[in-house]
């Protein structure tokens, strides 16, 4: 009886293992993308995961995609649209399991990690194979001299100013230097109530406040946090930028709750008139106007260090595009990429997104949208796009490490020098 029981157990174990392996193999053999039409020349369905559709006016992105299908009847594009954070999580897990959709929307901060995992393909090769002229591209994100992401639309982060609050505080002109900014922020905060001069979102879940709201002060004065691709956080310009943020905090002009404030809280406080100035994406103009149509605000270049006369770096974020390395339809996928970066389509997409085109020859309709869009375009042209986190490995982790030290500085737990030295050390372990 005991022998029979043992034999039976063995039989069941073997069956379970076989079934599991069979099912796993069946799941695994589904390919990376679930695409159809493997036969050459046959109909192909491309999956395109992105967050763009969720941020554009309803139906606009679908029209652009429909036009592509009309021009290429054999290629169908299936949009997988989700908010930015969900898209990121989905792509991180898909990249890890080598099951990325055929075409993926990318943030420059993810590119290095995805490229190193072999999840996204080398676009330089595809450009050569398709005889595509890369000189028409405004920028490319490269890892080891190979292009992995092409920015389709760029969004700059200018200074947003509530003109009514500025006037109420007795400030006659938009600040252009750090000293003027501090002064204006103090005067706005002196209005009283819940009103403060500036908002600084330092939430650790999404620590991009470090990039958009802190490092932007450095880049606006022509500074850099890197030297020869390695961290250079103990340099005088970085120290000066962090000390300026600390001065703003010490002066009590930052909206309270900044250590767990999210980007959407910042925009909300600005929209509600609780914050006089913020650094934010141009893409949020529509949102602000929708939520408070009568808000009197304008956009301006970021203030620079006193006496600085050089070109000002302006932070930006991109709707980048990449192609899965494991897709069976790289040529069709690149055809779609080419379409989105085509002169006319790219101009149209940039116009409806309130962004700037990834194709240098594309001309967005600056008069079609908000006049602030034209102002921002002028700022963009007078300066240069600056975002040193693009293309860095583990860039979100780098931001988070900087964020923790900055929080220590703002709560009196560390000096600026110590915090920068600690961050320099931890960054060096990643990109040193």
């Amino acid at each position, binding site marked *: 009886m005991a022998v029979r029981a043992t034999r039976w157990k063995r039989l069941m174990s073997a069956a379970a293992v076989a079934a599991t392996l069979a099912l796993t193999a069946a799941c695994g053999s589904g390919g990376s993308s679930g695409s159809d039409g493997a036969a050459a020349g046959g109909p192909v369905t491309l999956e395109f995961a992105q967050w763009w559709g969720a941020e554009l006016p309803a139906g606009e992105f679908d029209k652009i995609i429909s036009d592509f299908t009309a021009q290429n009847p054999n290629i169908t594009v299936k949009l997988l649209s989700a908010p930015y954070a969900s898209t990121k999580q989905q792509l991180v897990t898909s990249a890890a399991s080598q099951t990325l959709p055929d075409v993926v929307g990318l943030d420059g901060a993810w590119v290095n990690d995805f490229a190193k995992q072999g999840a996204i393909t080398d676009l330089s090769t595809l450009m050569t194979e398709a005889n595509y002229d890369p000189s028409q591209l405004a920028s490319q994100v490269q890892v080891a001299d190979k292009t992995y992401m092409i920015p389709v639309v760029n969004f700059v982060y200018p200074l947003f100013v509530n003109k009514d609050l500025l006037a109420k505080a007795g400030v006659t002109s938009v600040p252009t230097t750090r000293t003027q900014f501090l002064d204006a922020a103090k005067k706005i905060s002196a209005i009283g109530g819940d009103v403060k001069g500036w908002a600084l979102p330092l939430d650790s*879940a999404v620590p991009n406040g470090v990039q958009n709201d802190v490092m932007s002060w450095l880049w606006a004065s022509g500074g850099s946090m890197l030297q020869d691709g390695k961290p250079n956080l103990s340099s005088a310009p970085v120290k000066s930028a962090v000390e300026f943020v600390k001065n703003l905090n010490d002066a009590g002009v930052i909206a309270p709750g900044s250590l767990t404030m999210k980007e959407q809280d910042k925009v909300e406080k600005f929209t509600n008139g609780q914050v006089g100035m913020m650094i934010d994406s141009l893409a949020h103009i529509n949102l602000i106007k929708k939520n408070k149509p009568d808000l009197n605000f304008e956009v301006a270049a970021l203030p620079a260090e006193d006496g600085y006369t050089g070109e000002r770096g302006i932070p930006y974020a991109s709707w980048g595009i990449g192609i899965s390395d494991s897709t069976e339809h790289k040529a069709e996928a690149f055809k779609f990429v080419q379409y989105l970066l085509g002169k006319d389509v790219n101009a149209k997409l940039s116009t409806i997104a309130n962004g700037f085109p990834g194709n240098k020859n594309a001309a967005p309709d600056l008069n079609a949208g908000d006049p602030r869009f034209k102002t921002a375009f002028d700022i963009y042209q007078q300066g240069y796009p600056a975002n040193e986190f693009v293309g860095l490995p583990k860039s979100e982790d780098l931001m988070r490490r900087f964020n923790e030290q900055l929080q220590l500085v703002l709560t009196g737990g560390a000096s600026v020098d110590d915090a920068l030295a600690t961050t320099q050390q931890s960054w060096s372990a990643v990109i040193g």
Partner: protein
Amino acid sequence: MTSANVDPAAAPLTAASAGGSASGRRHAGLTRRLVPYGYLSPTMLLLTVLMVVPIVMVIGYSFRDNVIVNKNPVFAGLVNYAKVLTDADFLAALQNTAVFISVSTAAHLVLGLTFAMMLNTKLLGGITKAVFRIVYILPWLFTIAVIAVIWRLLLDPAGVVNYVLQTLGLIQDGVSWLGEPGTALWAVTFANIWSGYPFFMISLLAALQGISADLYEAAAVDGTNWLQRFVHVTLPQLRPVIISMAVLDLIWTSQQFALIWMMTGGGPLNSTEMLSTYTYKQAFSEYEFATASAAAVIVLLLTAALAFFYVRQQREQ
């Protein structure tokens, strides 16, 4: 008396026939034994694919150098465990999680029992009880995302909580409940208590309604007061439910991720970092899937210890 003539030639046939019958019986017996396993096989297959395989894979990852990112990971022994267990952030997360789950569970129990007794009392009318029942159960109807947004708005420095406290003269200036390292953990714990007590309340209310009135009558005949009846009748009768609920709540609360992530992201200064947020950051921010797996296995072991007590308690019942 009749005599049977046995044909010697027929003997082997008879034996063969008997052998065939035995084989048929064995076959029938085997089929009968297999049938239950056939019924069980879909569940076993699902459990294997959805539970056993992922758990085994994560345990396997935790013993290798950086998996997934590294295409050819090698066996790394206990390095990942040593790294996690000596990481100050992990130890802080462990401490925060211990505070978070123990305070949450204790408060869930006290609030749940209090409200359940209130809804079970004979002092209130049926309509009043129905209204309170709806009001008390409301937090349970909201999703975690909604709860996080509600409490972020309420606890904002310019939010309702500060306004009320300032109006009552309890505080002078607005407090940044989620933005101060000293208050953030208590603020998220409070939000978790608010969202979780109705489950305790409903379960305890059902248990209270199941206590025989004879016990209370007998106690009343013995001259006991309300407190004595509560201590010597109600609590002993509720004990199995209270223990089961408490252990389950400890397990569930230890896995709370969404609320923390959406309210504070583990900050400020790691003051609300939990084992769940720590593991998530390791995997999806640092791309250290091996250390994330090691942290996950440690969480699994801690949770398994709680589950062990739960199962043992259930068996005792």
